[in-house]
């Protein structure tokens, strides 16, 4: 079984570790990520102006090209997933826009491609029960908080990922790996997103609240599905420390890094050098590497 895979820009640069671990884990789980040829930027934001057809063209082109090669497209980055999935939904539902878009990109795409997040593949095609059985090194004793951010879940009708107010998919995944999951109220709150460019203080504040809430509820590590979130909650910890002197840093993982540990991948292939808060001492202490 293989899936068409759209990595997105960040997974080739700042989040190489996310990309590599996902590819390596998929092999161990018996499926292949087949990278889409000649892919472009996803557009980075789903346009909210209803007449902004131009912004819909990059994700539409990606979808149309993918459809020529397969039936299921998967992504890892929550932002790409959001843009592509919502565009797909729009093409399915809005006949007029569909025609306009197809005229622009000179394709005939009807919205009949399935867009799945990697976690959704693990849930529905592998199954968390199966995953649990394939775990070589359970993450026993690791108290982790599953941080969804907002992009996977909202708008819920378009995304169809999980309950937007109280999702459980990510927790079920971590439990399958043997981790102890920490529930915390900020798990679906915004990380500050692109505010980290224009108003960095706003993003720092968001990150502080999210991490503070996770730590308060007993988390030793926070797990992310999104390079944008990871930038804000991992790389911004330096800024948080400057503002809140008592803040103690907490390691942030991509979910695929933890999957890699659990699947028994060599820890040198897990790309920890790209993590801002070095997780290696923590993992050693926990006896996981």
């Amino acid at each position, binding site marked *: 079984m293989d899936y068409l895979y759209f990595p997105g820009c960040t997974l080739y640069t700042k989040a190489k570790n996310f990309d590599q671990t996902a590819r390596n884990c998929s092999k161990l789980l018996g499926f292949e990520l087949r990278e889409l040829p000649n892919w472009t930027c996803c557009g980075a934001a789903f346009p909210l102006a209803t007449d902004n057809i131009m912004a819909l063209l990059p994700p539409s082109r990606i979808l149309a090209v993918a459809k020529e090669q397969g039936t299921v497209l998967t992504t890892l980055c929550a932002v790409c997933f959001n843009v592509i999935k919502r565009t797909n939904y729009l093409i399915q539902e809005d006949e007029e826009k569909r025609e306009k878009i197809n005229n622009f990109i000179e394709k005939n795409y009807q919205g009949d491609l399935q867009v799945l997040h990697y976690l959704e593949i693990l849930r529905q095609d592998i199954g968390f029960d199966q995953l649990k059985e394939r775990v070589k090194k359970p993450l026993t004793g690791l108290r982790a908080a599953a941080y969804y951010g907002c992009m996977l879940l909202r708008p819920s009708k378009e995304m169809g990922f999980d*309950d*937007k*107010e*109280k999702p459980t998919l990510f927790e079920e995944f971590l439990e399958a790996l043997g981790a102890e999951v920490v529930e915390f*109220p900020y798990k679906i709150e915004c990380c500050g997103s692109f505010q980290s460019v224009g108003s960095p203080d706003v993003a720092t504040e968001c990150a502080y609240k999210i991490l503070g809430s996770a730590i308060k509820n007993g988390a030793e590590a926070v797990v992310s599905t999104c390079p944008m979130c990871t930038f804000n909650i991992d790389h911004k910890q330096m800024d948080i420390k400057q503002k809140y002197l008592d803040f103690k840093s907490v390691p942030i993982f991509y979910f695929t890094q933890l999957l890699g540990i659990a699947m028994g991948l060599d820890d040198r292939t897990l790309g920890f050098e790209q993590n801002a808060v070095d997780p290696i001492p923590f993992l050693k202490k926990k006896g996981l590497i």
Partner: protein
Amino acid sequence: MVLGGGIGGISASIDLGNAGYDVVLVERLPSIGGRMLQLSETFPTLDCAQCTLTPKTVETGQHPRIQLVTYSELDEVKGKAGDFTVRVRRKAAYVDWDKCTGCGLCQEKCPSKCPSEFERGVGLEKAIYTLSPQAVPNKPVIDPSHCRYFLEGKCRVCEKICPVGAIDYEQKDRFVEERVGAIVVAVGFDLIPKESFGEYGYGTIPDVIDGLAFERLNSASGPTTGEIRRPSDGKIPKEVVFIQCTGSRDPDRYMPYCSRVCCMYTAKHARLYKHKVHDGQVYIFYMDIRSTGKGYEEFIQQSMEEEGILYLRGRVSRIFRDGDKVVVWGADTLTGKKVEVSADLVVLATAIVPHKETKELAKRLGIHADEHGFLTEAERKLRPVETNVEGIYIAGCAQGPKDIADAVAHANAAASKVQGLFARHGKME
């Protein structure tokens, strides 16, 4: 026949009984009184609901022309206006009501307690229970889903204690047939479950309750004997948030309509709370204030200006638990600011919805219900109590959200329609 023994059904029954007609009053619960019996005080006069209602229930119970058929549901209807044959299912109470004297010993001694629907989950009841000490009729029923004997096969304490031997574990549902000339449907309403609201914790936060639960906390006959104590730890809450329009006026996700009473009862709740907890702070999140009733706007103005209640125009996006506090995130759209309140108790003014059984009841009666399940009147403006079936009339909140005054007026109208029908066609039994 009147279906539903709330204030609407009671009013219609008394009217018809006083007019000289025999009335069969069918009630789903063990005793009459309906939702009003759950209320503490009523707006805009703040008089005690039970004090105004009890004389009515007693009058109904003692009325020579009203036959009470409680703990019963309509099963089947045949016939037409003037000559309906109605089959009624009398649910097994496991108590022989003819023998029972209503002494209450069984309830005192019953060893199993369970969360009570009547107390909206904030209080307990025994497995053998009446709805209130002033229940009409004052006869208990056994809830087999909580009774030790039914669950575990032993106990029978109530049987041993009963001085007249009224307990009958072998009782079965039975059916009775009544011939009636007209039917008034006044089966009332329910509230949209607080479990529907993911943003408010799906009902998992104990200190997030609905309006009826707050009525019970505030009621002298309620589980806290009228002291405002929050469900989680019994402490007196000092910061209370009320959220109006929870599930109402939200066409995308919940109910598109206005539930009509929430603005008023929330103001009432806030005032009653302030009268009991003087140093408490109340926040009310609202969309608009709809106070279109006699004396209502004055009541709201007084609440805002004299009672120190903080009205915030805006919606609440999230409620979560933080330690022993309930954190409320909302917006104040008049100042454009985000608001965060660390509350001790949150009260949701949840939307009025029909009972989920109302649609099925409508089908059995051959009358219409709308997409939400409210019963449909023959004509929106000019025939508000008639239905598409001659001889069947509707009253109260089963037709749509109403306050008590409107429900009573609606029931009075239904009763007078029945009298008109009988006058036209000659008196029937």
